[in-house]
């Protein structure tokens, strides 16, 4: 165990010393990785914020529940109770056919129509605001309420929201595609860097093998190097991202203020940042593993 720790500590030390000696190259490498990681991250932040914006839209979608004309009072009560107890419903509002009729008559343009009607054609209605405003949830709720006895028609008014969510979905797919492409690029960049390092240390590797170094011993410092490049790249990316977002924010808040909103671009939370850094580290490790594996099999 102690020996194992020793060997790791020693490998890490070798790598850190090497990196210190080539400070500029190492920092440049961090920056290359940082910029590469930054691109999907910025897109992520934008989509994430749009998501948030969509989440606190004041104009909340409603489901209109028109009841049957000849509905009995106890069925209305039933519906009322179901609405009150339903976990997916945030608020609801009852509009009786009488008050709707009065509204219609009070409205000057609609009064003309009202006068031509002999009796009140309007049904009792509930206007329901769901808790979850995602199109899927709204649709599910609407379909559920459509089945309730006494409900003539349940109408969801969420087309525009559906469109917004489709756009956000597209954004998420774009991020995924970008992440895969750039992840591949990172593995290639790090793999190539490590390959060059192996070339410069060829002699050392050969001698080490001749005097009894295992492949694992030879591989270890390079794996650490790859992981450190990834880690450095991840940290630089976080830094870049924070700077870019705060740069954007000065304009975004200004635009939002002119619309009377307090919207601003939020930075990714700690978990997301950590995940970005950890995945960068893993990509570095993988790239380096591939490069060393190839080099070792060539030496055999």
């Amino acid at each position, binding site marked *: 165990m102690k020996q194992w720790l*020793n060997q790791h500590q020693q490998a890490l030390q070798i790598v850190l010393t090497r990196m210190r000696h080539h400070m500029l190259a190492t920092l440049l490498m961090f920056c290359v990785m940082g910029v590469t990681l930054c691109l999907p991250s910025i897109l992520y932040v934008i989509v994430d914020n749009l998501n948030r914006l969509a989440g606190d839209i004041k104009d909340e979608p409603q489901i209109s529940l028109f009841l049957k004309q000849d509905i009995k009072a106890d069925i209305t009560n039933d519906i009322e109770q179901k609405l009150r107890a339903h976990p997916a419903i945030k608020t609801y509002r009852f509009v009786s056919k009488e008050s709707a009729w009065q509204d219609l008559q009070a409205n000057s343009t609609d009064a003309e129509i009202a006068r031509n009607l002999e009796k009140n054609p309007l049904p009792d209605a509930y206007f329901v605001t769901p808790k979850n405003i995602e199109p899927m949830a709204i649709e599910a709720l609407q379909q559920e309420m459509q089945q309730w006895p006494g409900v003539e028609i349940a109408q969801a008014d969420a087309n525009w929201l559906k469109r917004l969510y489709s756009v956000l979905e597209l954004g998420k797919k774009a991020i995924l595609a970008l992440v895969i492409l750039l992840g591949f690029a990172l593995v290639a960049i790090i793999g190539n860097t490590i390959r060059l390092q192996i070339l410069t240390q060829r002699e050392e590797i050969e001698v080490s093998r001749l005097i009894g170094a295992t492949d694992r011993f030879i591989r270890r410092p390079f794996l650490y190097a790859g992981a450190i490049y990834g880690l450095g790249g991840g940290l630089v990316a976080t830094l870049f991202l924070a700077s870019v977002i705060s740069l954007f924010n000065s304009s975004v808040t200004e635009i939002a203020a002119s619309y009377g909103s307090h919207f601003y671009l939020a930075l990714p939370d700690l978990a997301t940042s950590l995940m970005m850094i950890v995945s960068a580290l893993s990509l570095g490790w993988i790239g380096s593993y591939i490069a060393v594996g190839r080099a070792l099999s060539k030496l055999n």
Partner: protein
Amino acid sequence: MIRFDQVSKRYPGSHEALKGVSFELQQGEKVFVLGHSGAGKSTLLKLIAGIERPTSGTVLINNQNVSKLRPAALPYLRRKFGLVFQDHKLLYDRNCFENVALPLYINGVTGSEAAKRIRAALDKVGLLGKEKAMPITLSGGEQQRLAIARAVVSRPSVLIADEPTGNLDDSYATEIMGIFDAFRQVGVSVIIATHNVQDTGDARVLRLDQGQLLGTEQAKALGL
């Protein structure tokens, strides 16, 4: 301890470097492998150290058949040997201390224990004062001694040297041989390949000619 049984080695696209070589070496022996260049001396040493595998025949090291070892086990076999290469194979981008440290690090020995052993090894070859020097600044003889220090630092039971005095003038060569004798005195087997031997003393001699073993006589009997 080391047994060769009808060992042949053919490199791809080349002649047979060794043909049907058989011999046995005991622990603590000093052996000279003699022959012109191209006689198969280096190949013989590489087969002993598990760097090459025989094309046919068996190489037994401590009753282990080298051909049957898994590739992953070979590094551990190699650690039993201290190797001094024909071209030193020193690392010129690090100082003497770090060069000698390499086998210890491979064995997982680090820190003060390693430092103690590195200084002891450098002391044995008379380079204690040069631990911070870069190998390129050393003379040919000093580089050879540094290579020996690296070979012995992990206390191998067998020391193998390929042409250790090849490019050195006589006084250096005698000095190097003296160092090998000192190791032999503490029970280390010493196997030395060379094409010009002045004094083999009481050592055994394996004489190779074009890949064939001519004899394993005592040196004195040959009248050398």
